[in-house]
């Protein structure tokens, strides 16, 4: 029973590091994902410029890696920084491909240079996000504690410490309200600057119903990863939080719904949507903007 803990912890640690990197990428890079100029400039960037972009990003990652980076361990050697930065760049590229596919910016009728240019250009902000993943949210200096708990508890095990303590209805409501408020605040901070832009109708217009469903699934998954898998440090606190947001899955779904509701309000405010608009427009616009909103909401709850 005790034997498999050591090999598992190596893999679990690596998984946490990589998922933290992905989370950092999304947290920092998502505003530029919703910027059409970035897609367009990507279509006519020369190969030399692409290489220069990757090289400069790599240099920036090495510099960032000396202070923040995405790994739990403190970097000691320069060699370590060099390899970690290569991984950061690869993760940035991967996140770029996935998110451009999700938003149907990459399609099969595009030429190779267009595709590569868009991927490379969009990967730059994502890679920078990986490089500052540790610095994005306060890791609270309890790396050790979170590692220990990751080894001993599974994520679907109910939180034990704080939840057993006084469960008065008032404090339950207070916690739930605090979580909802943090989600709402985070969602507004990220999505408000995207809501009035033309990118929302542009992306929404190219998303078919299956693509919308995929985007919903991705939004939930990314939000879940950021809050519960990336080990930003506040996870223990989150898992022991009481209230309606208690279980990781219900918390993820509830905060997605809050994000969608706020997204609708923001779109109404900026007159992207009005009450005479057809249903499919409401649905597609809301889900399109729901991704950045729920990423912001996830960050908001961790920052709480």
């Amino acid at each position, binding site marked *: 029973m005790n034997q498999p803990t050591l090999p598992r912890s190596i893999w679990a640690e690596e998984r946490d590091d990589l998922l933290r990197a992905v989370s950092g990428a999304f947290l920092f890079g998502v505003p530029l994902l919703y910027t059409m100029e970035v897609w*367009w400039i990507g279509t006519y960037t020369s190969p030399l410029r692409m290489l220069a972009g990757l090289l400069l990003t790599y240099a920036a990652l090495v510099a960032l890696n000396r202070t923040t980076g995405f790994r739990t361990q403190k970097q*000691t050697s320069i060699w370590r920084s060099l390899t970690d930065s290569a991984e950061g760049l690869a993760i940035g590229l991967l996140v770029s491909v996935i998110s451009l596919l999700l938003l149907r910016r990459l399609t099969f009728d*595009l030429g190779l240079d*267009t595709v590569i240019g868009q991927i490379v250009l969009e990967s730059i902000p994502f890679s920078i996000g990986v490089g500052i993943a540790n610095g994005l949210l306060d890791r609270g200096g309890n790396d050790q504690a979170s590692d220990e708990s990751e080894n001993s508890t599974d994520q679907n095990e109910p939180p034990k410490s704080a939840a057993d303590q006084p469960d008065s209805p008032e404090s339950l409501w207070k916690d739930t309200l605090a979580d909802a408020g943090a989600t709402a605040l985070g969602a507004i901070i990220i999505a408000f600057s995207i809501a009035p832009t033309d990118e929302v109708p542009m992306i929404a217009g190219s998303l078919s119903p299956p693509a919308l469903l995929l985007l919903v699934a991705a939004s939930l998954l990314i939000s879940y990863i950021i809050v519960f898998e990336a080990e930003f440090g506040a996870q223990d606190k989150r898992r022991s939080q009481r209230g309606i947001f208690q279980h990781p899955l219900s918390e993820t779904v509830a905060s997605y719904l809050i994000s969608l509701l706020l997204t609708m309000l923001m779109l109404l405010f900026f007159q992207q949507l009005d009450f005479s608009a057809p249903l499919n427009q409401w649905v597609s616009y809301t889900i399109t903007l729901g991704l950045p909103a729920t990423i912001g909401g996830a960050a908001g709850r961790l920052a709480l």
Partner: protein
Amino acid sequence: MSKHSAAGQQRSTAEWLSLVISLLLLTAVVGLIGFLWITPTDEVPRFSVQRDQAREVDGVFYLPVTVHNHGDSTASQVLLEGSLMVDGQEQAPNTTLDFVPGHSDREATLIFSADPAQAEIRVVSYQKP
């Protein structure tokens, strides 16, 4: 603490795996960019227009057309114009495509008040982005 400083020196199997995958990925991307660099990709935009089946709604004809850019370079503000003689008068619906990247398709619809089977459709102008 000691566990971490020890792990900091030695790379675990998991870390090796992600490093190898990352390097493979980066090699592939850099290789692709190198390939693009070697193959000349500065051919100016060249367009072909392909018309789809027109559909008639209340006596108005909607003609979907696909513009393909055969060149390597991206064209912006691509002006697409149709021309059809209806009862001795020329109908010239037009539309502007924001962006047509090299080797890529963009779709648009032109609207006529008569059957556009005889209509002439062409790209009139574009801008270099």
